[in-house]
């Protein structure tokens, strides 16, 4: 049985990776586009997972990061002819700076005040994007250029599919490194909701405020990248895909997938879009909001019964079958 266990550890991920790599061979454009969206929102969800799952700081408006990233990159490309790659980088920097300011400013406040502040920031930035001329208001920006490498323009689904895959792979590695490092430990040490203690962390010399800010910045940059790639993929953006409700969806993705894991939020994103597809496939009543309702329901149920998310399933199953639980120590 033990040999079987090791077997699974390598076979299953291997199969999934192979599946993902070969998807464009048999998948339709539509299927590829779904996966692209899963990936883009998944990036932002991953950022949410780092902030809420590891550092325990609630951000009620993670959509703002995607919003700023998307619009920065789009405006720079359309109005100033700046390369999309550079635009994406600028978006990430701008979002990071804003996150830095917010994080630094709110550093010693009670965690819940941070939550309300993030909600306000999200509301204000959404309003700004809807009203300002530079962002073309609710009608959005069109004719956003695609990415290009040298003369080669990324203008097809399959290009973006692999781009997203590559970016996700990089983010996965980078995030794993972060979590296993002293930053990850520091996040968990100050995470009140998972046995940490801000007071004890400070007493052993951790600058808790700075750590919170760092988690915030990481979260922001991930979201921004997702937003920027979105802009250059869809080539026209409105504020709507990055509104407050999407922000809450991001939180739900991270939670359902598993907040204390790097894959979790990505799985959560997959579940959301998968759910959307299932609902539209069953031709179910064209009720706007149905998938959000169902996802919200799943979210609440998970919180009650399986707070650590879908990734918790394997260990729960293992425990049921009597095998020793590996636990969460990294």
């Amino acid at each position, binding site marked *: 049985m033990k040999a079987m266990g090791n077997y699974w550890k390598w076979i299953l991920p291997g199969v999934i990776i192979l599946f993902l790599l070969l998807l464009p061979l048999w998948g339709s454009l539509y299927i590829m586009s779904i996966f692209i969206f899963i990936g883009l929102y998944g990036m932002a969800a991953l950022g949410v997972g780092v902030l809420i799952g590891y550092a325990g700081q609630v951000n009620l408006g993670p959509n703002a990061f995607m919003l700023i990233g998307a619009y920065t990159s789009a405006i720079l490309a359309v109005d100033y002819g700046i390369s999309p790659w550079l635009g994406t980088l600028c978006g990430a920097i701008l979002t990071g700076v804003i996150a830095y300011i917010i994080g630094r400013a709110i550093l010693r406040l009670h965690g819940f005040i941070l939550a309300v502040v993030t909600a306000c920031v999200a509301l204000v930035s959404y309003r700004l994007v809807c009203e300002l001329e530079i962002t073309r208001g609710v009608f959005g920006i069109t004719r956003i250029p695609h990415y290009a490498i040298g003369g080669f323009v990324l203008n097809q689904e399959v290009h973006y599919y692999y781009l997203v895959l590559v970016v996700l792979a990089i983010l996965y590695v980078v995030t794993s490194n972060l979590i296993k*490092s*002293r930053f990850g*430990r520091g996040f*968990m040490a100050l995470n009140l909701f998972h046995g940490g203690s801000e*007071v004890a962390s*400070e007493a052993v*010399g*951790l600058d808790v405020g700075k750590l919170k800010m760092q988690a915030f910045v990481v979260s922001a940059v991930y979201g921004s990248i997702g937003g920027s790639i979105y802009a250059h993929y869809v080539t026209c953006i409105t504020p709507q895909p990055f509104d407050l409700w999407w922000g809450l969806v991001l939180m739900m993705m991270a939670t359902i997938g598993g907040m204390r894991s790097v894959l979790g939020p990505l799985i959560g994103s997959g579940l959301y879009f998968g759910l959307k597809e299932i609902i539209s496939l069953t031709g179910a009543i064209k009720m706007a909001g149905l998938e959000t309702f169902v996802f919200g329901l799943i979210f609440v149920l998970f919180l009650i019964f399986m707070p650590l998310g879908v990734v918790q399933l394997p260990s729960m199953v293992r425990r049921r079958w009597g095998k020793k639980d590996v636990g969460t*120590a*990294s």
Partner: protein
Amino acid sequence: MSRQGDSPYLEFRNVSKAFGGLVAVNNVSFSLLKGEVLSIIGPNGAGKTTLLNLITGIWPLSKGEIWFKGQKMSGLPTYRICHLGISRTFQNLQLFTDLSVVQNVMVGCHTKAHSSLLEVMLRLGRARREEQELFDRAVEKLSLFGLEKKALAMPLSLPLRERKLIGVARALATEPELLLLDEPAAGLSVEEVRDFSQRILKLNEHGMTILFIEHRMEMVEGISTRVVVLNFGCKIAEGTFDEIQRNEDVVAVYLGGTQKEEA
């Protein structure tokens, strides 16, 4: 137990702390010399833990000042105070329950790590080396208490005595000069208290200055250089254990508790 210098190491100057109408610490002054082991005793609610919280900057002072190594310390944020060389344990331990034992202690070592966020995320050489160093230093601190074998265990799976030692190991990981212990002996058996006292004494012999709050008189008697007695937030006596044992005010406060031990 060495005593050096004329200037006090840690100094309380007319310190008061009030929470709204409740005065927790009332005009307390005393000093601690380098290399001493000072214990603070007094009935529950006398303000002892508040004192510790004031030293470590968890609460701002209402009045007065706290000086450390000739520098005014009151008003600094807690983590800065830690960097100055003061570390503490908590009465309720406050271990990081979702981190393993060695990870708990490694958090204490973080003050010595300097690789940046970016370096860590990209796992560049310096970051990797530092991580290994942190691990080695943490294990070293654990081995001071014979706990290196339990490094990968989760704190909640260990008995109280070991968890307390992990708390001390974590505090020591910051390489402090002054160690504050908040009721370290609470909940331990007589044997365990003796063992713990010995370990603290050994730390002191190696140059650590110690300030601790206790109720367990055998520990206070066993290792203190001096004792400060608090009652209702006021300092009512100061001296060696023998001296305060004979102090009438102290005896009155404890209502004959010390008397019994003499007999």
